[in-house]
């Protein structure tokens, strides 16, 4: 297997906020083109790639959905030379002050990247009740340092603001950066596609980098409808154990991907994947989602006539901050497990996806 880290680091530098995924889709498409027979963009913005199977037509198909969209910020107004903000996807305003960002200024035509910083105004310029408490997003600004006359020329309301934290390699083969949620999973899917180059598979494989997950798993709805897969496997990041996060709903980082259980997941698919991981001795954790998985699986399951769905996770620390952390090993293991699963899908596998009542 080739080292996935350079691809992942490159992907982490692309903005691709929800609804504006093109910059990420272009990098992923270039990487996938030699690994799939065709790529295309879905109507809702997702990137689709197909690796055709060896089975007789019409073949069953598996869709692997990994969302490519990033959380970030958007300009809602300009005060003097300072940009007011709203969030795209869920951002804790308490991590924003001092965060380096890139403003994609559209006023002069095509979006032009400008470096800036999210800033917290001094206490005397804020409502007195805020004092030393966290400053709500409505009072934070982005400052580019440029003078007002220039800002008024180049920045428009609606311009996108992405995190600019460059990816960092930490010890123990871990990577930190923004948007590892969920480009770590896009990287795992890429590992899977590479593995499948040398593994014959009966089923068609739809590799999907889905759009707009962070604003309600929107892209996956369209992709599932367009592609009509026999089953859907959703790979997203999950909360890793770490500072401040040690409850039942967190999983250890570096100890393998998680297999999720709950109403969004078809139990037969879960069991098939778990049995496979046990047989191959690929480490994994079990994850429990009593209600909504908070992933594309929430959408794929109920698209069209309904699709049996499996949800897997890659444990990630500090989710939705600019310094998320993930273990490269978990990405590789998730990719390999997916490839093994796909290679093992027989022509009659759907007959095993039953309700064992």
């Amino acid at each position, binding site marked *: 297997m080739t080292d996935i880290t350079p691809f992942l680091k490159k992907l982490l530098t692309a903005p691709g906020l929800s609804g504006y995924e093109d910059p990420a889709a272009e990098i992923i498409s270039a990487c996938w083109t030699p690994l799939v027979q065709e790529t295309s963009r879905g109507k809702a913005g997702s990137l689709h790639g197909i690796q055709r199977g060896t089975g007789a037509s019409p073949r069953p198909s598996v869709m692997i959905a990994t969302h490519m969209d990033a959380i970030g910020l958007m300009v809602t107004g300009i*005060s*003097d030379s*300072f940009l007011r903000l709203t969030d795209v996807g*869920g*951002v*804790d*305003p*308490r*991590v*924003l*002050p*001092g*965060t*380096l960002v890139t403003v994609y200024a559209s006023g002069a035509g095509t979006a032009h990247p*400008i*470096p800036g*910083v999210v*800033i*917290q*105004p*001094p206490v*005397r*310029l*804020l*409502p007195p009740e805020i004092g*030393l*408490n*966290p*400053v709500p997003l409505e*009072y934070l600004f982005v*400052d*580019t*340092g*440029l003078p007002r006359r220039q800002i008024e020329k180049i920045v428009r309301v609606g311009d996108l603001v992405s995190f600019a934290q460059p990816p*960092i*390699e*930490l*010890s*123990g083969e*871990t990577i*930190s950066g923004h948007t590892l949620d969920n480009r770590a999973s896009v990287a795992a899917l890429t590992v899977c596609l590479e593995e499948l180059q040398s593994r014959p598979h009966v089923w068609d494989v739809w590799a999907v980098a889905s759009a707009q997950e962070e604003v309600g798993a929107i892209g996956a709805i369209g992709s599932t409808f367009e592609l009509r897969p026999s089953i859907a496997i959703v790979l997203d990041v999950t*909360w890793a154990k*770490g*500072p*401040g*996060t040690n*409850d039942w*709903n967190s999983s250890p*980082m*570096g100890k393998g991907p998680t297999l999720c259980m709950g109403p969004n997941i078809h139990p037969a698919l879960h069991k098939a994947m778990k049995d496979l991981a046990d047989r191959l001795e690929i480490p994994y954790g079990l994850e429990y989602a009593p209600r909504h998985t908070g992933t594309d699986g929430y959408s794929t399951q109920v698209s069209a006539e309904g699709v049996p769905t499996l949800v897997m996770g890659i444990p990630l*620390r*500090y*989710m*939705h*901050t*600019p*310094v*998320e*952390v993930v*273990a490269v090993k978990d990405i590789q293991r998730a990719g390999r497990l997916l490839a093994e699963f796909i290679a093992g899908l027989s022509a009659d596998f759907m007959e095993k996806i039953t309700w064992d009542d």
Partner: protein
Amino acid sequence: MPTFGNAQLKLLEKLCNASAVSGDEGEVRKIILEELKGRGGDTRVDALGNVLVTHPGSGKKRLKVMLTAHMDEVGFMLVADDGEGLFRFETVGGMDIRQLPGKAVLVGKEHLPGVIGARPIHLTTAEELRQKIPLDALRIDIGPAGGKVFPGDRATFATRFQRNGPVLIAKALDNRLGIVTLLELFKNAPTNIDLLVAFTVQEEIGLRGARVAAYTFNPDLAITVDATPANDLPTWDGEENISYNTKLGLGPAIYIADSSTLCDPRLVRHLSETARLGKLPFQIRQPGGGGTDAGSIHMARAGIPSVSVSVPHRYSHTAASIARMDDWKNTYSLLQAALSRITPELLESGRA
């Protein structure tokens, strides 16, 4: 007159990217000593780690003029090893802990990368969101394999210097802007005065280096060069911002009073007159809080007439501060002109 260009920017970049938390200023000291090498003058490092260098003048009656800029920056010290690459830490210097979550840091002499994370928003209650994240809930995470860093090691924000046209974005612009300014003033020292330059330690934790440097130099007068906040932002309710301290783009900020020093009026006058004569932009820093090395210098020995001049910059003591190239250049130009105009008569005039 020499102008600020690429050479000075390169040096500023190198200095901003270096780590020099109060008490551990070695990296910046090393860069300064390299810059001073072969430039003449008597260079030494004193008991606290201040770099002291002198340039004697050649006129008959000369004042001994001390210039200071602090080398240290705010940052962190690791204080406990929780295992698996996680460390508890304390802040060094005045920092707002609301500025810490979600930032990348560099730890120890080897600059090992680390991050300060935060609990995912998905797992955070509405009540928690109203509270700031306490320092004891934060960790510096260098990755699960750990590394050769230990409690006692310092850490700084990992922000790398960037320039966008007229805009400089970096950590520690406070006070690497002052350091480069002093280096250039020393390299182009006027001969009408004895120039005594101190690159000081431990400013951010109580102006401690400057105190002993002033004793050692025993100057006739002192000028501190620092970076001061420009709080020139809109107010939340659209009212006029009446506590901006300084404004970006209006030039060097001359101090009249801060929380620790009433600047010598003769020196304030000398600086503002110099600016007017040279048609150089300047602003008076709003008298009020804050402070510089002048706070300890003006009380050294029998009292030393002191003044401060700062480059205005926004978001001091955070991961990323912002300054403008012109304000920095004009600070240098003002000081250069002011030094060359100093005569013994300056201190013989009245204080009123």
